[in-house]
């Protein structure tokens, strides 16, 4: 490719080739953007993920319900005095994922535990009121959570996450 005619202006030629290549590369990169971006949740999915309100009044002490928010199951447990005490008795530092029960509930609403019911191991749904700690038991690979949704036994690495929520009134929460 090095012939007399192009060797006359080596710098101009190189600049032209580099500029063309660079512009083409920028174009290719910009083209990839929409092709990848379309995989993200679309506008209707995002809109459907708006916060939801849950009425707590019908949940009796010792009972729990499962609601769905953004396609995820959320456990809302109305804990008994005994369950709360059990959760608070244990030494936080002895836990695999140390977190106190107070950190996981809203102050003044200690009886309400709200957790995302997805096992932190590989995503199965733990069963409420089962397992050695009267909390949650995941049947997939045997992870056991306590009455605060904290991991106590089994392969799961961390506690059941608490979703963002607030008390709108004493008997109503807004999740999200």
């Amino acid at each position, binding site marked *: *490719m090095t012939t007399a005619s192009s060797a006359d202006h080596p710098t101009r030629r190189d600049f032209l080739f580099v500029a063309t290549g660079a512009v083409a590369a920028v174009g290719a990169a910009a083209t990839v953007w929409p092709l990848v*971006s379309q995989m993200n949740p679309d506008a209707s999915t995002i809109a459907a993920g708006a916060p939801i309100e849950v009425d707590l009044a019908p949940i009796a002490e010792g009972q729990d319900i499962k609601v769905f928010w953004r396609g995820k199951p959320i456990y809302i447990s109305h804990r008994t005095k005994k369950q709360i005490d059990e959760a608070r008795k244990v030494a936080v530092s002895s836990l695999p994922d140390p977190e106190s029960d107070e950190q996981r509930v809203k102050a003044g609403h200690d009886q309400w535990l709200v957790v995302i019911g997805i096992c932190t191991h590989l995503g199965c749904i733990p069963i409420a009121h089962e397992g050695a700690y009267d909390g949650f038991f995941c049947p997939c690979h045997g992870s056991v959570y306590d009455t605060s949704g904290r991991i106590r036994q089994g392969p799961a690495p961390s506690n059941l996450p608490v979703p963002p929520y607030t008390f709108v009134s004493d008997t109503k929460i807004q999740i999200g």
Partner: protein
Amino acid sequence: MSGPSDFQPTNPALKWIERRLPIMGLMHSSFVAYPTPRNLNYWWTFGAILSLMLGVQILTGVILAMHYTPHADLAFKSVELIVRDVNYGWLLRNIHASGASMFFFAVYIHMFRGLYYGSYKEPREVLWILGVIIYLLMMATGFMGYVLPWGQMSFWGATVITNLFSAVPYFGESIVTLLWGGYSIGNPTLNRFFSLHYLLPFVIAGVVVLHVWALHVAGQNNPAGVEPKTEKDTVPFTPYATMKDMFGVSCFMLFFAWFIFYMPNYLGDADNYNPANPGVTPAHIVPEWYYLPFYAILRSIPNKLAGVIAMFGAIIILAFLPWLDSAKTRSSKYRPLAKQFFWMFVVVCIGLGYLGAQPPEGIYVIVGRILTVCYFAYFLILLPLLSRIEKPRPVPNSIADDVLAKSGRKSATMASAVIALLVAGGLFAGSVQDARAEDHGASPPGQKWSFSGPFGKFDRGALQRGLKVYKEVCSSCHGLSYVAFRNLADAGGPGYSVAQAAAFASEYKIKDGPNDQGEMFERPGRPADYFPSPFPNEQAARVANGGAAPPDLSLIPKARSYKRGFPMFLIDFFTQYQEQGPDYVAALLQGYEDKAPAGFNLPEGSYYNKYFPGHAIKMPKPLNDGQVTYDDGSPATVAQYAKDVTTFLMWTAEPHMEARKQLGLQVFVFLILLTVLLYFTKKKVWANAH
């Protein structure tokens, strides 16, 4: 693909692979060292353009399939949701939809080029036949793809095309039932078409590999039509052909982008924005423009079976071309008669395309028959005859001689090529426009819209006023079911805040449920809810409105149009006129007359409207002066209401229009820069070769 290569990688790892799978050698010999005739002109870049288009269609198609629902009840809606909600969904859909047209446009040029330069002659017969097979597969794929949006044209196009097979003697009906998977076109048909539409492009890709293989065995033809003899006749594929192809591709992308960003509905049919309705056939069933010549042939023949045979024959005959034309001289450049007849044949094809879009009546039928005869005569009489009687001019000794001889008049050829391309493109593209609804009375007067043209934007005030008109007037009968309250706060929309949109939503009662007791209940609207429809179902809407169900308004300005006629549709292509729909809707709202003109027989329960097709409309005059109070001081007149509500509905029909035009500008600036750079790079590279 042309025998073993002497390419050897130096990297030991690559060497290891190459010894076991000589793929780099294959690539190198096929796309780098491959000798390509040095006299190829720009018509030869369409091979590269077609490869690109196949890639683009497969890529965007695979993506669209991630969001599309192939179900008769959901398909139309899912396409709308892609365009409205998926990130860049409007862009992907526009690329795929106009990409199909671009693909056919390029393939037609590619085929005419082969015809002109005799690229089908010995030893390239198999190469040519593979091309015909690809073309057939493309037609099947394009047809099935057009069915997927499940609009009116999808549905009725599918009906007409599948019914072609009913012409087969004895087995016709059974074949059609087999194709449908039912007693009529329905959900099973849609599902199988979706499956095949996904499959066939990969079959095409497979045949393309064979096509390229055959090409690399026989070698490329060239404008002189003489085979390369010495080294001097060829240049290596890379960088010479590669750079030239890239420049050609870049020019083509400019043309393509014009459609994607500025004229996305120019090649489509407004009727396809109406959901499929098995009970009503549109006034004019017209296939996509790329089938029109064959459609014209079908309609020219008054016998059903003969028509179908003629139509398929018109395509199949191409496969026999190598034997119909036995002239020794390849290139029409050196065949004075063949050259003239070639151009006449091009005119015949474009003429047939034009006629395919016209109503099958009067003069159109007669001309259609004449052109059909011309089409077949070209292949069956003219070419065989010419190869016997024509005296060709002497061909150059070698390709190198050809290059030397013509280097003087090169630019002129190129300019005429570009002009021919533009005219052909405009004509082909425009011919379908004529097919649009015909029976309209007066043509609606053209209005000035803030959203027209390449820099058009919606007038926020008009959108907000239009929303008010819709809410207070139209919404009592018409739904707006693809629009959610949250959209009112979207960028490029009426410009409300999220809180305002939520407040607006909460004024509506939305049916929800079932609750824990299994009962449906009403609750205040949320931003994620859609505008509720005034009637629970179509039957209820029909009964309440004298037998005519008020259509959903979400898409109305895109689903209505009127005939532009020749030469307006050509001018529209360059001026980017896309506002037939809004012009019609605004005119209709103002087109009521208290008394029908003398002699017009107005049916009971109808009203006279100047612009409504057939003039008898079931909708009473919806707007009257002073009916809606505006708070911004705009005049409370019917004209203002009509304009505002039409603007609002144009936004509901295409909520991302502003984004489309903005991105279009950026893409054009980029593409022009790239094209200029590629032009100079190509020139620099080729400077060594001349």
